[in-house]
């Protein structure tokens, strides 16, 4: 066995196994963020004030806000760049494509075979999402004597447009499909495999995907219906 420990340490982060593990850890952490984000957003349904106060609390704690934002940017960029690198490498691993390629129906799923595409939809969504909300129209409101941003109004105005709500829902469904494969896949990449728990984990991944997919889509629908009624 020729490889010395020294030559290995250099190639460690470039090995196929570790590249996948980097995808896994960043992906799982982003999954955690998604859940927190959804929980916060659901305050929209509770009351406009609750949502605005929550948003205000988040942006008021500057050190926490900047740390969290920096962390998210790093996670997202690492996940994205690694995905791009892996996709390019995987394409070059088969320079000549098959004349006919047919799935066995016993392995790949719709979700697993569309990861780069759903990932791309999420990327585009993320840019438009920050643009319409975080950097969207700023309204102000005063709750309990404190002046703060009326993010609720910005959000509801966005969802009131059929195209806005539809694009949001579409992207969230793509996101759900993406995580339905990614969640389980992350554990496999780290080598977690168990005859009893792995099937459970796959189900948990689907349940998680349905939860975030349905949760965010419900918000868009709620906003749209509110808009129509207003």
């Amino acid at each position, binding site marked *: *066995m020729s*490889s010395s420990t020294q030559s290995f340490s250099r*190639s460690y982060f470039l090995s196929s196994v570790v590249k996948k593990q980097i995808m896994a850890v960043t992906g799982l952490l982003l999954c955690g963020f998604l859940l927190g984000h959804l929980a916060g957003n659901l305050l929209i349904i509770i009351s406009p004030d609750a949502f605005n106060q929550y948003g205000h609390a988040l942006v008021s704690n500057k050190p926490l806000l900047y740390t969290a934002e920096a962390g998210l940017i790093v996670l997202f960029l690492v996940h994205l760049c690694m995905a791009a690198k*892996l996709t390019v490498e995987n394409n070059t*691993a088969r320079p000549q494509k098959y*004349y006919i390629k047919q799935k066995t129906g016993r392995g790949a799923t719709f979700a697993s075979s569309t990861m780069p595409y759903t990932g791309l939809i999420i990327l585009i969504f993320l840019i438009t999402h920050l643009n319409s909300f975080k950097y969207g129209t700023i309204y102000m409101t005063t709750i309990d004597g404190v002046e703060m941003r009326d993010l609720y109004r910005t959000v509801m105005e966005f969802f009131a447009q059929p195209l806005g709500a539809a694009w949001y829902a579409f992207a969230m469904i793509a996101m759900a499909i993406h995580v339905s494969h990614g969640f389980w896949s992350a554990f496999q990449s780290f080598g977690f495999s168990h005859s009893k728990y792995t099937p459970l984990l796959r189900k948990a991944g689907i349940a998680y995907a349905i939860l975030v997919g349905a949760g965010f889509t419900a918000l868009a629908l709620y906003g749209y219906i509110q808009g129509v009624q207003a």
Partner: protein
Amino acid sequence: MSDTNTMTLNLKIWRQASTKDKGQIVDYVLEGVSPDMSFLEMIDMLNEQLVAKNDDPIAFDHDCREGICGMCSLMINGQAHGPEKATTTCQLHMRSFKDGDTIAIEPWRARAFPVLKDLMVDRSAFDKIIEAGGFVNVNTGNAQDANSILIPKENADLAMDAAACIGCGACVASCKNASAMLFVSAKISQLALLPQGEVEADQRALSMVEKMDELGFGNCTNEAECEASCPKDISISNIARMNRGFLKAAVSAKTK
């Protein structure tokens, strides 16, 4: 061969004169194919006709024709070793097809498996991976008394399952990323699970994965098409074992 059960097939076969040649799909019509023939016998039949016409016969890999050597290959209608589960091409029979079917036959395609001629590919990349560490290098001494080395039944079974890999390359061929992880993980697992192989398990995982990457195989995306196409039903739980073994080896590298 005038049996009423015989079939006429429309074959679309990849012909390529050499590694450098561009290659193309060529159409053949083959009559009188018996459902009892194996897939390779069907190609033999076509080749006899080609030779009789002074044409170049189709080159394809085969050896044992009983599903144990791993020499046969072929993408049949876009599936490695054809449509049947856990079946090598040599064990696939024409009864899996019907009269009038169109069958596309292509070689394995991967950067690491260059086409030599027609349907034959060079799979020596797999040998290079084995050379990098797929063996036991420690002196295990004379044969021990039976039962003096205790091996849990589960480990023996898992090692045996991994050792069923015949190294045909269907995992690489069927993977959309042309990844060799199923093969490599089976070869790592069959040794790592047993006491004699366990000694070098860490270094073996590092060396074999390094070689696999160097040879230009793709990265696994956990789709399990390899497992689904494997004629020996090798499980992707071997890939998980390799992933954690590699991580463990990497963080516990033995240095002073």
